[in-house]
């Protein structure tokens, strides 16, 4: 019998807790909220205004938040500075590898709970890939798209674990969400950029480049002019074609910037929001709501990054296919 079955169904309560336990939890939460409100800068200012002198022990009063955009190096290994965001990235990778190994170690036809969770996540992303890129291409894109989704998502969620940013070494946080360092989103954006580039080249060869450097029709139109078939509209539309191609090239490179700054901006803003929230009302305060919001933001950003990679990869292999038909 499982623990769930053992519990009497007649027992009254909520969320698996009986009422006395719920009441105790509620009192503790409200107590911490009031304590946090009074110990934080908001409460201190209010108390000052009303002339009440209530001093709290130093460990209860939050320190002024310091926000560093650049990730500080925590250690030096063989002259290489190891930053806190790098370590958070490694932890995410180790976590994902271990988790995957644990799940796939003993795969069963009738899956266990852990296998069901993992299979449903992967199945959902796989269905998404297939629905956007088709059966054949969806299978090809799935590994990269899924890796990006899991890495970005788990990175975001990992930094929400309480205590993650609280450990300090050499005056700096030991760990900080990898997405809040501009280098990680940039690295991911470069991976995504070269993935799209590679697919385009692999499937269409140098023809793929002709959509960006569309000089062919222009030279053909000029050539026809020399043969006596002068057509202004031909030359004009070919010139527009060159312009459009260069515009596409420009937008491809701008994509790199937008990929990077979207993820970096969203994650850093979230981190700052949590820091400020924890400063204004420490312990259980506004962060209660911000945490839920940040979990959603982490998921949405992981989804956006991976779907955009999927969409651009799909476009890069099908841009000329569609024209040929």
């Amino acid at each position, binding site marked *: 019998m499982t623990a769930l079955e053992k519990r009497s169904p007649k027992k009254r309560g909520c969320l698996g807790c009986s009422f006395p336990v719920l009441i105790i939890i509620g009192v503790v939460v409200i107590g911490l909220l009031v304590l946090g409100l009074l110990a934080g800068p908001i409460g201190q200012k209010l108390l000052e205004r009303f002339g009440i002198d209530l001093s709290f022990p130093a460990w209860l009063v939050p320190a002024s938040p310091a926000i560093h955009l650049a990730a500080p190096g925590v250690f030096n290994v063989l002259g290489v500075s190891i930053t806190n965001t790098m370590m958070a990235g490694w932890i995410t990778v180790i976590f994902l590898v271990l988790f995957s190994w644990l799940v796939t170690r003993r795969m069963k036809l009738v899956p266990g709970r852990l296998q069901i969770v993992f299979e449903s996540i992967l199945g959902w992303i796989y269905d998404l890939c297939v*629905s*956007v890129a088709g059966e054949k291409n969806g299978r090809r894109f799935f590994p990269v798209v899924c890796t990006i989704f899991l890495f970005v998502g788990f990175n975001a969620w990992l930094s929400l674990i309480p205590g993650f940013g609280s450990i300090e070494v050499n005056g700096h946080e030991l760990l900080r969400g990898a997405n809040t360092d501009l280098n990680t989103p940039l690295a991911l954006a470069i991976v995504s950029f070269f993935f799209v580039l590679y697919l385009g080249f692999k499937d269409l060869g140098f023809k793929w480049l002709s959509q960006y450097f569309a000089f062919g029709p222009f030279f053909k139109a000029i050539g026809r002019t020399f043969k006596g078939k002068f057509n202004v509209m031909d030359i004009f539309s070919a010139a527009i074609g060159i312009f*459009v191609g260069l*515009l596409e090239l*420009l*937008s491809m490179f*701008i*994509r790199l*910037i*937008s*990929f990077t*700054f*979207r993820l970096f901006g969203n994650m850093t803003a979230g981190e700052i929001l949590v820091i400020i929230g924890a400063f204004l009302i420490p312990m259980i305060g506004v962060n209660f709501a911000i945490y839920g919001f940040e979990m959603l933001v982490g998921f949405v950003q992981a989804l*956006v990054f991976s*779907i*955009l990679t999927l*969409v651009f990869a*799909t*476009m890069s292999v099908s841009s000329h296919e569609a024209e040929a038909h």
Partner: protein
Amino acid sequence: MDKLVPAFQLLGIGFYVVVCIAGGAGLGWWLGGKKPVFIIIGLVIGLILAFYGAYRMIRPLIDSNNKQDKGNG
């Protein structure tokens, strides 16, 4: 799901517009120093690029919408 591909393309549109306009103005500033005429020319070119590019990005979405309307009608 048909609209997912063009709709997601639009996510980069803001960056595209910003980079085009700022890039155009920056280029004009680099070319002409403090002469405002170059900055204005750069700005205008950047604006044209931004609007035309944005129009081209939005077009697939409009097309798919039109197709759907025709299908329904």
